[in-house]
């Protein structure tokens, strides 16, 4: 009798949990569905080509070209990777291959704490300290691709470090021992054996870092100047897809608002592609 009650309870719980799970799915898919449903019509109306390749964004006058912003998003991402990638990899390598246990225990969490600092704080400090330096040393207004890349580079370092570290650590010890046995120095081992062995994980880390950079909004609005043209050089001001949405969201209506959803779709698609590539790259390693 007690048994039956317990079994009934179990079943009820099962239903309840299933309910939670389905609610979660629905919530999660709600966001995708909504963005796509709202944004797709404009692609039909104005033409996919005109939007993605269009050079002029003046949505109140019927121009929905987001190409300059796509390019700017990519430039900022690449810039961030150039600055944050190598340093991040260097840190991960040091942590994985060189640091003693005590140092690691302190350094690793410290570097991960960098990820906890809100993007608005990064943006603020960048405006106060990096922008004037860029302006005085290099010229231009300082609100530039360069300043944005520097700050974003720092922001994506934790991502790169974390994933690179994990993949370096998962390289079997035998690889290193074999290399030492053949008389290689530590650096030769690290540089020619371990890192290449971990390269797919490191690559995945870089790609996910790109995803983070391309999705960043607040810091970019504060640092990039938000001009609508494709930047001709690292000192030019630019506007990314994310900034565009943030700047115009509050007042956009009608087709203008749809234009922002279309921008959102493009962003989502780019990020999903990046995530997919990163996962694919990692899986290849596992199979190998």
């Amino acid at each position: 009798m007690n048994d039956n009650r317990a079994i009934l309870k179990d079943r009820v719980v099962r239903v309840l949990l299933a309910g939670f799970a389905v609610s979660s799915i629905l919530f999660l898919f709600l966001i995708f569905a909504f963005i796509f449903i709202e944004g797709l019509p404009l692609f039909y109306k104005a033409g996919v080509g005109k939007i993605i390749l269009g050079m002029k964004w003046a949505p109140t006058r019927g121009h929905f070209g987001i190409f300059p912003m796509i390019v700017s998003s990519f430039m900022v991402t690449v810039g961030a990777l150039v600055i944050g990638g190598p340093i991040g990899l260097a840190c991960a390598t040091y942590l994985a291959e060189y640091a003693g246990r005590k140092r690691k225990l302190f350094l690793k969490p410290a570097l991960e704490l960098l990820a906890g600092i809100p993007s608005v704080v990064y943006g603020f400090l960048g405006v106060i300290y990096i922008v004037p330096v860029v302006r005085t040393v290099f010229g231009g207004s300082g609100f530039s691709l360069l300043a944005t890349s520097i700050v974003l580079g720092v922001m994506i370092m934790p991502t790169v470090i974390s994933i690179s570290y994990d993949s370096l650590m998962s390289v079997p010890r035998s690889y290193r021992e074999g290399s030492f046995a053949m008389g290689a120095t530590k650096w030769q081992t690290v540089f020619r054996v371990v890192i290449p062995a971990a390269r797919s994980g490191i690559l995945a880390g870089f790609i996910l870092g790109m995803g983070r950079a391309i999705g960043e909004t607040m810091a970019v609005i504060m640092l990039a100047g938000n001009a609508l043209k494709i930047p001709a050089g690292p000192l030019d001001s630019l506007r990314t897809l994310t900034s565009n949405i943030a700047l115009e969201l509050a007042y956009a209506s009608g087709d203008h608002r749809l234009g922002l959803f279309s921008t959102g779709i493009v962003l989502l698609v780019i990020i999903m592609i990046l995530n997919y590539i990163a996962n694919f790259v990692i899986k290849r390693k596992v199979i190998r």
Partner: protein
Amino acid sequence: MRINPRLVDRWSGWSLNVLTWFAVGILAVIVVVIFVKGIANVDLGFILKYPEDMGRHGGIFPSIIGTLLLVALSLVFATPLGIGTAIFLTEYTKATRFTTILRFGVESLAGIPSIIYGLFGFIFFVIKLDMGWSLISGALTMTIMILPTIIRTAEEAIKSVPRNFRMVSFSLGATRWETTIRVVLPSAAPGILTGIMLSVGRAVGETAAVIFTMGSSLRLPTSLMDSGRTMAVHFYILAREGISMGNAYATALVLVASILGINILAYYIMNRVISRYS
């Protein structure tokens, strides 16, 4: 001319060391600058007083409360939903199409930029569902944001509970639910807690999604439908508009200190898990 490999070895080890300390140095500089410039304005009054003159004077009490309320409310929604989903995925089902779809959904939401949540939350909750700029709009949006993280960390924590625990419990005649709630969950609790705290850390620092859903009213939110600021939003507005550099730094100090505190706490809990299982 070949460079002596031993030289390269020593030099490279040294430069990696330097670069790493440089990176940590960046963190140190950030924290120190915020602390030094902010501490002048942070006192008990700052934390307990209301802002005056758009934030030029006074304190940040409403934004502290706004942050707490928003995060608490989001957790109220996201925690049962997330843990329940994780339990369901790991304990109650085998790998079916349903679970694959769910996992795919959770993974896809991994890298979504916060502005997309802001876009969604603004149009869907604030406008279409007519909830206005409010705590509830913000909390619902934030829930969707932290749900994937909670599901993922809870799932991992539950998965890492050794199988024998469950086996022993079943062999003693317990049902699945009894096992879950009395054996699995308590063991997985630290891991789940870590995930929740990391989500909280993220939520506290979030701006783009919050400013478009919860709004930026300077008042203290007293009901679900009230708008309000979080510390991050207040800081953003102070900094951007140049309202008060001193107060901007002070707000940043409170903000960063809270997030670092939460993260450090999460690490502490996580370390206890690792030491327990190794």
